[in-house]
């Protein structure tokens, strides 16, 4: 296939991929998840004041509830949204752009690995329409940006095998990816060490070692700010907090052998089971992530038929394992699930998103060995897959998963706006932290939001992991409802069906003001006006009336 036609097809794929990633970005996923609201709000605050919601100037890691998120996504979003109106589209745009750029990176990667134009185009197309790649391009937090930077860094690492000038670029971009997502903090050092070990003959010669040293210094300089906070909870809370220590000791206690033997065996078993789950065709091609917020309904990372390309690809890859491209792909393939395998969540697609890169490359190896008729079949299956993608992405996701995605908060914000003189108490017992999502929709001014936060946090920013859900901002407050006190105050109580039942409403003379339902007709929020006068008359409480 000629280069002009290849370029035209590539343009078409990029255009189509952009459509899949940008269409109705504002409304699908339907709502705003708390993990999206935090970087979006902080991006606005950084753009306007240079400080985050706690008043910390340009943090190295953003404090998010009781945890921390790497800063790059927030800073990039703050550049995009500079002085602009906050919108869900802007909150998700960095991710979507990363997804579109990834299409180009995948095409270049396949070309660099020596695939012909047809295989490269097919591989790029398969990546473009993969449910996992599309889904994570449409959510407004850091994972996809981390995926882009890691892939780009790896591309330059591979290019450096033929031209050492690319090494420093590879190291630099990989260092940058550490600022994008937690997984890369563990994965990037592993990748660099293993890469240098596997291809040591290329880099440890007298002529080239200078370049290697320069790249290493550049890498250290890039990650220096992260090293400063490396041993603080800003870094360790996610890494150590998610490790399955309890499961290991529980398994070890069941073995009737000394603890020095049983603990390593239990760890090995747990780690191996988690690790192999990331290569399991059942998880990759059929059963979606069990976390409903992190998956498309009924679709996993890839379409089921792609398993053929995966299995053939693995076989071809093993045959080519002695070639540089084979060694490099195997390295990426075996490394990618390691960080995710150290966490207790079964098959956490979010933490292993970078696995898509080696998997797609493996499918490219498989595609290379398909006859022309096979390629036609792949194309037809891809087209057929568009129907199931439409079902999952456009029909089921915005309707079935709306509640999980924080649907209803924009409507609640409208209710709060409608009643500026009334006080709202939003029950936080059963709802994801509401203050940050409402701060997004209500466009709370920076100074008011920063004033609402605990002032002590700023002074010990990277060490303070205590989380208090009690916030008072403008006319709303978030905390658990106290049924002994709150019914005696003139305010509007907001909660879900279980937080405020019909019986409680009747008992405490509450008047229903509004009801917010999901597209699936599930009740998300109920708003009740208290009636302190009537309550006091019915059960006089001298302290409260």
């Amino acid at each position: 296939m000629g280069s002009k036609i290849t370029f035209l097809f590539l343009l078409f794929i990029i255009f189509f991929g952009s459509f899949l990633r940008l269409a109705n970005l504002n409304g699908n996923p339907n709502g705003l998840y708390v993990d999206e609201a935090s970087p979006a709000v902080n991006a606005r605050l950084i753009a306007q004041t240079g400080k985050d919601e706690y008043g910390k100037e340009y943090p190295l890691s953003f404090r998010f509830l009781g945890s921390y998120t790497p800063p790059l996504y927030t800073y990039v979003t703050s550049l995009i949204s500079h002085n602009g109106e906050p919108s869900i589209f802007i909150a998700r745009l960095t991710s979507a752009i990363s997804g579109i750029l990834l299409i180009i990176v995948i095409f270049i990667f396949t070309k660099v690995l020596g695939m012909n134009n047809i295989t490269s185009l097919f591989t790029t197309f398969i990546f473009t329409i993969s449910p996992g790649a599309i889904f994570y391009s449409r959510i407004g937090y850091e994972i996809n940006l981390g995926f882009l930077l890691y892939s780009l860094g790896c591309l330059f690492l591979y290019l450096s095998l033929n031209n050492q000038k690319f090494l420093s670029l590879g190291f630099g971009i990989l260092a940058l990816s550490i600022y994008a997502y937690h997984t890369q903090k563990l994965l990037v050092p592993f990748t660099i060490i293993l890469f240098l070990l596997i291809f040591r003959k290329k880099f440890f010669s007298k002529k080239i070692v200078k370049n290697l040293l320069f790249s290493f210094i550049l890498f250290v300089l890039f990650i220096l700010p992260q090293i400063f906070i490396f041993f603080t909870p800003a870094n360790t809370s996610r890494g150590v907090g998610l490790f399955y220590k309890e499961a290991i000791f529980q398994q070890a206690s069941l073995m009737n052998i000394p603890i020095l033997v049983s603990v390593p065996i239990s760890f090995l078993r747990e780690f191996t089971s988690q690790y192999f789950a990331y290569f399991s065709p059942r998880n990759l091609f059929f059963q979606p992530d069990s976390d409903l917020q992190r998956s498309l309904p009924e679709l996993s990372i890839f379409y089921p038929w792609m398993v053929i390309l995966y299995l053939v690809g693995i076989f071809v890859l093993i045959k080519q394992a002695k070639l540089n491209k084979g060694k490099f792909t195997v390295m990426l393939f075996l490394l990618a699930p390691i960080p995710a395998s150290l966490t207790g969540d079964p098959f956490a697609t979010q933490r292993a998103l970078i696995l898509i890169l080696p998997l797609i490359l493996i499918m490219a190896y498989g595609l290379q060995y398909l006859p022309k008729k096979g390629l036609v079949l792949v194309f037809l299956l891809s087209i057929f897959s568009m129907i199931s993608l439409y079902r999952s992405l456009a029909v089921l996701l915005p309707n079935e998963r709306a509640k999980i995605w924080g649907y209803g908060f924009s409507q609640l914000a409208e209710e709060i706006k409608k009643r500026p003189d009334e006080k709202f108490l939003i029950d936080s017992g059963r709802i994801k932290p509401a203050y940050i999502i409402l701060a997004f929709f209500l466009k709370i001014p920076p100074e008011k939001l920063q004033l609402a936060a605990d002032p002590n946090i700023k002074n010990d920013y990277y060490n303070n992991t205590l989380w208090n859900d009690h916030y008072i901002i403008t006319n709303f407050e978030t905390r658990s409802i106290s049924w002994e006190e709150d019914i005696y105050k003139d305010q509007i109580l907001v909660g879900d069906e279980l937080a405020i039942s019909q019986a409680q409403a009747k008992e405490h003379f509450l008047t229903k003001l509004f009801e917010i339902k999901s597209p699936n007709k599930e009740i998300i929020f109920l708003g009740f006006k208290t009636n302190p006068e009537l309550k006091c008359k019915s059960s006089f409480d001298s302290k409260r009336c």
Partner: protein
Amino acid sequence: MSLLLFILLNSWIWKIISLFPLIVVPLILSTIFLYKKQNILFLVTFFILLYFQLITTISQSFTLLDNDEQRVRSERLQFYKPSLHFTRVIFARFNLRDFLEGDFNTIQTRIYRNFFETIDLNIYFFAGHPRERVWADDFEKFSFIFLPLFLIGMYKIFSKGDMYFILFFLATIIILTGIGHKNNLGPFLIFPFIVILIHEGFLNILNFLKNGK
């Protein structure tokens, strides 16, 4: 001799012995015949195993929906109202709604489920952990330390192009895809293949340690 060791060195066969000892003889024989490539004898024992697999497995319909699945389907059908989005008009015109939420989809999903469960190594080496199937009453069939041997054996047999083994192995996967996994003895039809793959891996490691090849 070493093959016999691998036949017995797993908890799967002992579970079968404790629950349904009658199956053990054809199970051991079919493993040995498959290894020795005694086609006719293997086929005989394989069909006996298949018979036992069929009578011990609780059949699952490819089309019937339980109450919860029916509720989900009726809810989902509401999302295709042409009034909700202009693209739904196309769906209504081509009757795609019934295609996507109807029997075709149910059959397709269940076939996929059976197939992917059959080829999921975590089910054989980790009792389905970390994504346990509560309904399948999973148990650890082989110790996880055999997994590397299994993978090496698989690579060796597939790269040798042992068509006799490969074809029967694929046929077994297809049969189990049809039968399903609702069996408290597990999908034991595949037992001989896994044992032989582990054994093959073991022989290769042994050969590597002895001769460096």
